[in-house]
Structure formats: structure tokens, C-alpha cells
């Protein structure tokens, strides 16, 4: 197991390097150092000389990839790419260009509000979707199932934007049931989480329920389930014990890939990189969790 994880991590390195190059290229084409200086210095009374000073102070007056004025390793090292990008590998995001704040610290601060919404939405959504899917599978072939499937298609066909707009409008403006926005530290936070969590769960319900329903349906037609049922095992037990347990692998595969999205905050280069790191970690965890759900799976 340990060996396996090590090997997977080694695989991750070239991938992260690729991510690094892509994000770096994207960002430096979008916002050139000149733009950055302008952005941070403001509009009024700014001279070219001040822009030059700003860039010099932050190391943006170096060439992008290769420094022809230097010798040996410095040719690579004395460049914007190396200095701004390589340190990401050590998850050291350096200081922000604007006010020179430590980004690591800021990310760790900013992470919590978004996690506080994302994690409950994710868990509640998962539970709701699986329960609904179970119900539909349980009543398969009846009108309830048909009605349910039609409902999921309708839910799926509504853009998530409508859920957000309608949710805010009804819950806060019309019914005064939840604060329309905001955040609170500590336990009191839950009042602010209700609205986004409810919206998040409902908007994911259509697609989620349908997806799990198809997984369960596939599982329920297998021989062992039929045998169990023939033996007189109650339907609910069949569903929750056999079907759910065996559907765990596809569920996990779908779940873990979503996790990095939970961390998404602002559009900055660091988030992109952090997101992909989490994704890779997520993949490894998925593999490990397979062995935990299904002892037949071996890591090789």
C-alpha cells in the first residue's frame, strides 16, 4: 500500500508540472507584468518610471523563461517562470504582488467559508440523492418510478441559475426565513448555510438521483440480488445491504472527483494549482477506498 501511494505520487509530478506550465502561460498572457503594475498602482498620476520600479521590486522585470544575461543554471533560475512558478511545487505560494501579503496564510483563511458551504451541500446532497434513487428503484415499474423519472428530467432541464435566483427571492425576500447573504464565525454559521445548501442540494437533485438510480438498477438485476430476494430477504434489506454496498465503487468514483471543486475560491493561479493537487490526491484516495469497500480489489 505504502509503495503504491509513493508510486502514484511520483506519477503525479509530471502532471503537476504540466498543470504548472499551462496555468503560468494562461495567466501571464492574460495579465502582463505591465498590466499588473497598472492594476496595483492605480490610475491617476502614474509615471512609467513608477511602473518600472514596481516591476523591479517584485521581480517582474526578468525574462519569462530564459535569461540570456546569466550563466549556467541561473539562465533558468533568474526568470519569472522559475521564481513565480516552481515554488508552487512545495505548496509555497509566496507573497501577493499587490500588498505583499503571505498567500498561504490568506488561502488558509479563505478556505473555511467556502468549505463550510461546500461540504454540507455535498454530504446532504449525496444522502438525498441516494435516498431518492433507492426509493425510485424500490418502486421500479410503478407509476411512482415513472413520475420520479419525469421529475428528475424536469429538474435536470432547469438551469442552476434559476435555482439560485428563485431560492434567494423566495426564502429571503418573500418569506424572511434566512439571511440573504453573509457569514458568521462559529456555531452561528448554520443560519447562513441553510440557503446555499438547500439551493445546492435541489439543483443537484435531478442529475444525481438519475445517476444513482441507473447504478442501482444495474446492480439489482444481478444474480446474487435475485438469489437473495428468492430466499425471502426483505426488499429493503436487499436494497440497502446488497445493492448499496456493491454500488459503492461507482459512487465513490463519482464522488471523489468532485472534491477539489469544493475548494474553489477566487480565480487565481494558486487556486488552479491547489485544485489539481487535490484532484490527484482525490484519485489516490479513491483507489484506496476501493479496497476498503470491496476486499477483492488489490492495489498494484
Amino acid at each position: 500500500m505504502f509503495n503504491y501511494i509513493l508510486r502514484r505520487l511520483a506519477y503525479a509530478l509530471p502532471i503537476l508540472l504540466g498543470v504548472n506550465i499551462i496555468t503560468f502561460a494562461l495567466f501571464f498572457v492574460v495579465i502582463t507584468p505591465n498590466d499588473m503594475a497598472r492594476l496595483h498602482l492605480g490610475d491617476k498620476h502614474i509615471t512609467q518610471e513608477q511602473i518600472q520600479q514596481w516591476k523591479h521590486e517584485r521581480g517582474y522585470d526578468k525574462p519569462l523563461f530564459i535569461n540570456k544575461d546569466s550563466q549556467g543554471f541561473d539562465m533558468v533560475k533568474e526568470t519569472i517562470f522559475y521564481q513565480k512558478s516552481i515554488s508552487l511545487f512545495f505548496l509555497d505560494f509566496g507573497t501577493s504582488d499587490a500588498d505583499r501579503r503571505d498567500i498561504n496564510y490568506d488561502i488558509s483563511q479563505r478556505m473555511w467559508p467556502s468549505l463550510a458551504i461546500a461540504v454540507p451541500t455535498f454530504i446532504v446532497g449525496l444522502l438525498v440523492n441516494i435516498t431518492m434513487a433507492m426509493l425510485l428503484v424500490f418502486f421500479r415499474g410503478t407509476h411512482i418510478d415513472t413520475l420520479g423519472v419525469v421529475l428528475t428530467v424536469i429538474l435536470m432541464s432547469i438551469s442552476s441559475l434559476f435555482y439560485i435566483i428563485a431560492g434567494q427571492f423566495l426564502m429571503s425576500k418573500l418569506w424572511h426565513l434566512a439571511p440573504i447573504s453573509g457569514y458568521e464565525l462559529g456555531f452561528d454559521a448554520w443560519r447562513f448555510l441553510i440557503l446555499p445548501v438547500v439551493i445546492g442540494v435541489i439543483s443537484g437533485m435531478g442529475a444525481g438521483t438519475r445517476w444513482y438510480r441507473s447504478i442501482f438498477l444495474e446492480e439489482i438485476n444481478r444474480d446474487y440480488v435475485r438469489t437473495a430476494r428468492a430466499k425471502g430477504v426483505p426488499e429493503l434489506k436487499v436494497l440497502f445491504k446488497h445493492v448499496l454496498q456493491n454500488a459503492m465503487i461507482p459512487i465513490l468514483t463519482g464522488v471523489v472527483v468532485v472534491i477539489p471543486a469544493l475548494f474553489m475560491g477566487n480565480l487565481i493561479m494558486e487556486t488552479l494549482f491547489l485544485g489539481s493537487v487535490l484532484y490527484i490526491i482525490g484519485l489516490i484516495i479513491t483507489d484506496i477506498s476501493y479496497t476498503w469497500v470491496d476486499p477483492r480489489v488489490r492495489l498494484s
Partner: protein
Amino acid sequence: MRFTKTVLLIVLALLTSACDNNPYPASFSDKNIRLSAFSSRLKYLDPARSYSSDEYQFIRQIYEPPLQYHYLKRPYTLIPSSATEVPKPQYFDANGNALPENAPVEKIDHSLYEISIKRGVKYQPHPCFARNDQGQFIYHNLSEQELSTLHELSDFEKTGSRELVANDFVYQIKRLAHPRINSPIYGLMSEYIVGLRELNERLQKVNDEQKPDYLDLENYPLTGVEVVDDYTYRVKIKGKYPQFLYWLAMPFFAPIPPEVDRFYSQKGLIKRNISLNWYPVGTGPYMLTMNNPNYRIILEKNPNFHGEVYPLEGAAGDKELGLLVDAGKPVPFIDSAIYTLEKETIPYWNKFLQGYYDASGISSDNFDQAVAISADGNATLTDDMRDKGIRLITSVRPTIFYFGFNMMLDQVVGGTAESARLLRQAISIAMDMEEFISIFLNERGLPAQSPLPQGIFGHREEDKGINPYVYDWVNGKAKRKPIETARRLLAQAGYPNGRNEKTGEPLVLYLDITGGGADDKSRFDWYRKQFAKLDIQLIVRATDYSRFREKIQKGNFQIFLWGWHADYPDPENFFFLLYGPHSKVKNSGENAANYQNDKFDALFEQMKNMDNGEARLKIIDEMIEILRYDAPWMWGFHPLDFSLYHDWEQNVKPHPIANNGLKYLRIDAKTREEYREKHNQPVLWPLGLILILIIVVIVLAVRLYQQREHRKLEVLTQNN
């Protein structure tokens, strides 16, 4: 079954008790707290660096520059803040001989401002001043171990304070030249303050060569600024620059004690993001105690504040508005001001109506709800708002949004050719700013007649103020000239019906703007419609702001839309946007249209250094006439600020330049509490409905399940 019932009851009780929309903890109720919001992270609270109204909203309450604006008087009047009086400059010729006050500008080589400051003023409590029994600073040399428990400024156990001295002001002026601070006004100030450029060059060199952790500015003198004694300092300005007084009212010239820089330069603190940009240190009425960009910013009363009283007199009409009730009472009145993160305007507006914010600007989209324009064209509150006890206060911002033509590099609309001038005037008539203001700003703007907005010296009202090339004065009102006039001008310019006289080619013009708003599409459509009135085809080129600026910088545009917010209330701060030598393309100045007219430039140089009076007004009139004739800009509009206040907030008078009114405001927390109680009763029936629905579904499902199991058993028994 009884169990489920109990659970249900508990859930219901919980829901009813917890379901309300109050976005604050209960402890905020009934307190003398002002509640408002901020929309994005504050980047710079360092007074040498900060230059945006978002940040000024905070730091103007914290720092005290030598001067400030009178809260109530209009036109804007300077009064002392940390200084004892508004300084009078002395003028000297090149040989150092004193000159009389009315000396001609050419003779003046430099001016000297001697500023004396109040005695006994103390800084807010701050760890950088904390000393031990031996009188040494406790926190100026923090070890790793000490640092391990420090994460925020409030984690420091001890704080100290000290008296304000003249050297702190001088130190801050030196900071403007600091290579690591990158002060936005360094470029401008180095033209005026003697020795600032030399200081910057020297510091730059030291910084590059030695890369010190801490650059001690005390070791580097600034020739133009000197400390006379503990309570007096002098600033030497090149030539004559009367506008310097206005700069002395800005945080750039507020005092910063050297201890602060020394303290914040420690590596451990930088690593923890404890810096002057995050935790400012000042002598003002408030101090910043919490700065969490994802949550809240809190200002609290500074216990060491030297005291100030509410103004004794105001502008005409202020007494009737109840603005002088508190005259002579010591300020500040409010214990703390709490700002909550609010990224979007819609939630902000809803919370304002629900009583969770004390004041609100009105965005164009909830305007109809709040404000009705009465028959005589004045804005009043709708009955609905008035019933809620909300008040409306309007003010003119010293700002202009204008459409500029490329006067230097474009041959169709720019340049001195007569045809281009006629074309510009035709377009100025066709561009119906009244309609723009009505559709997109809901009347919250005034069509500009010249660069000068209301409240700036030189602005004229009524028939004297209209632009005769675009407006007629009819029945006591400015009326835009009919579109036929514009078409005639267009024909004279050589484009009858929007087609080139010679080739028949349709006239195509380009408008460069920066986009990004939700109503972009509507606005672009509207611009096109205006030009279409003249059969001119307009192509709108919208780009992000960086790209837009780049185009302006290179002169790569034909017509553009930009705005300018004045630094100080002086006509010079508007006219310099059209001063030839300030051309953006040639000299990277602020003259984005690259307009150049020798006569105008000469008048500008003359006007710049004059004191307000008849003579200056005459020159300004002449300058405006030149501009209107040449029409390098379509004059655009001056935005009006409409703000709403709940009746529990008192002493409100917006000051668009000063921003330091927090200390004068008063809050009646009890009224606020009653209002909230009244307007936020939760509506519970939807919850009940959903609950009933869920129960019905569950019951049905259980019933069905039982039926099925029953049938299955039957089948099994039959089989057996």
C-alpha cells in the same frame, strides 16, 4: 409513533425559533453600533499607498492629516485637523528673498509652508509603542518563540502610545519616496516637493545594493522638508502651487511614527500578514480592531482621541434639516462601526430595507421602488419608503464621465480641420445624454455643460452655464438642439445623411469603452442608436480595463468613454485633463484626448496659480468657450449620489471629497430594533406545507411498501 411525533414537534419548534433573516449575532442588537458593508478586500491601508474611495472610507477615520474639510460648509472649506491652523505659504525668489503675497508667478522660485501642529495629541494604543520598565520597546525584536502565539494584532498583550510630534509628518513625506512602498503620488509630488526625487534615487540605490530588511528613513534627509521644533515643520515647494493645501488634507500627508515602520518590518510579522496595510496606526477618532476580508471589518472608538467638537455652524438650510442639533458636543458619538462583507448590490439593498444596514446608495435597478421624480423634476421618496421612515439625501460628486475624441492621431473626428470640428459638434448634439441619464442612471446625473461639475469654482448655473453649441435656452430650461441641426452640421462636415459626400461611402466610427456590466448589451445598443440618428454606423469596441488603458496610452482609438474623479475641489483638477503638455500619448499625462490648443494652454497656466475671484472666473469662462467650440469631448454627465438613510441615523451630510464623516454620525439603536421587529416577521406556511408534503409522501410510500411485501409473501407461500 409517539416518538416520531415528539421529534416532529421539536423540529418544528427549532425551525420557528431559528428561522429569521437577521444576519448578525444577537449581541449586536441595541448597541450604539453603525452597520454597513464593504464589497471587496481592502488592499492598502498604508496612507502613503492608499488611493481609492473604498479604502478612504476607513482610513479617513483613522489618520489625521494636517487639514480636513468642514463637514457642513459648502463650497468645500479647509479647516485644521491635526494642525493648529491652515498654513499660509511664503514666496521666495531664486535668491531666497521673501516676496509679497501678490508677487507674479514668474518671479516665485519656491514657496514655503510652515505647519504647526496641536499639542498633546496621542496615538491610538498599539503594540509598536509598548515599552518595558527600562523604557525599551517590547515588540521591536520578536523571537521565533514569541511569534508563535501571535496571529493577529489583538494577540499582543501590551500596547502603548505616545505624543504626536512634527517629525512624524516629515517621516511620512519621506515614505512617499520609499522604493518599496510605491506611493501613487510620488511621480506628481516629486515635481513639487524639493528633494523628493533625490531622496528616491538614493533610497533606490541603497535598496538594490544592500537589500536591507529595514530601510531606516531617519538616516536619509529630505532637503525640502525640515522639522523646526517638536510641534512645527516646514515644506518647501518648487514654484507656486496653491493646490498643495488640498493635498495636505489627504491621508498621504498624515503622520506616521517611525516606530510603526520599525515594528512592521519584522520578518515574522510579515509572514503572518501583520502589516501597516492591514492594521493602520493613527491619531484619529477611530481605530481598526478587526480586518477579516472574508467576514468583517470593525472600527472602534480610539480611547486616546484628542477630542473635537461638532461644528457650530453650517451651510444655509442645515439648521432646518436638524444638522446643528449636536453643535458643540464632543465627537465621536458612535462606539463602533461594523462593516460586513457584501459582494453584491441586491442582497445589500434587501438587507437595507429589512433594517440590517443603516444606509444605502441606490443602484439603478431598485430606484423606482425608492424614488419618484416629482412633476417639477425633483427627486422625492416614494410613499412606501417614506412610511418606513427612510430619508433621501442627494449630492453632486466632483466627477465627470465624458466621451473624448482622439484629437491628435485620428483624422476623421480629431485634429483642427473644420470638417472634424463640425462632425464632433453634430455628434455632441445627437448623443442624447438626458435620455442616457434617464434610462441608465434613473435621473441620477446631470448632463455636463463643461468639464466643471456643480460645486467647483467656475461652474455656472442656468442660462449662463449652458453649452450654446449643443443646447438652447428655452422657457428657463436647457433644451438639446434638434437632431436636424446635427444633421445639418454633419452635411456641412461633408457627410450628408451619414455618407461621404465624395464617395458615397457610409461613415463608420469606433467607440472604445471598457465593458463588464450586466447591462452592457443595453448600453451598446443605446450608443449605436444615438449615432444611427445621424445615419452614422457606430462600432462599439469593448475591452477589459487593462486593454482599454493600453489603447488610450498608445492613442489607438477614435472615440472613448472615461471618467475622472477630482482629487480636490479646484477647477485646475479638471482643466488639466485637456492641457496640451499633459497629452497621454506624448507625455503619459492625463490628457487622454490629446487635445492641444495654444491659447487654452496659456490660459490654463495663468488660471492654475490664481486665487478664486473675479479675474480667475473670467479666464475660466474664456477657457470653457474654447473647449465648447472645439468640442474635444462630448461633455457626458456628472453623476449624482442618491443615498438613503433610515431615520435612526442622524447628522448625515455626504461629503464626496472628505469621507471623514463617521465621527459626526449618531445612531438611535432602539428605533432600529423596533423597525427590524416590524419588518421581518418570518412567513412560516411554506415550511409547514413542505413538511406536510414530505409526511404525505412518506406515509404513502410506507403504505405501498407494506402492500407489496404482503403480496410477495402471498406469492412465496403459494409457491411453497
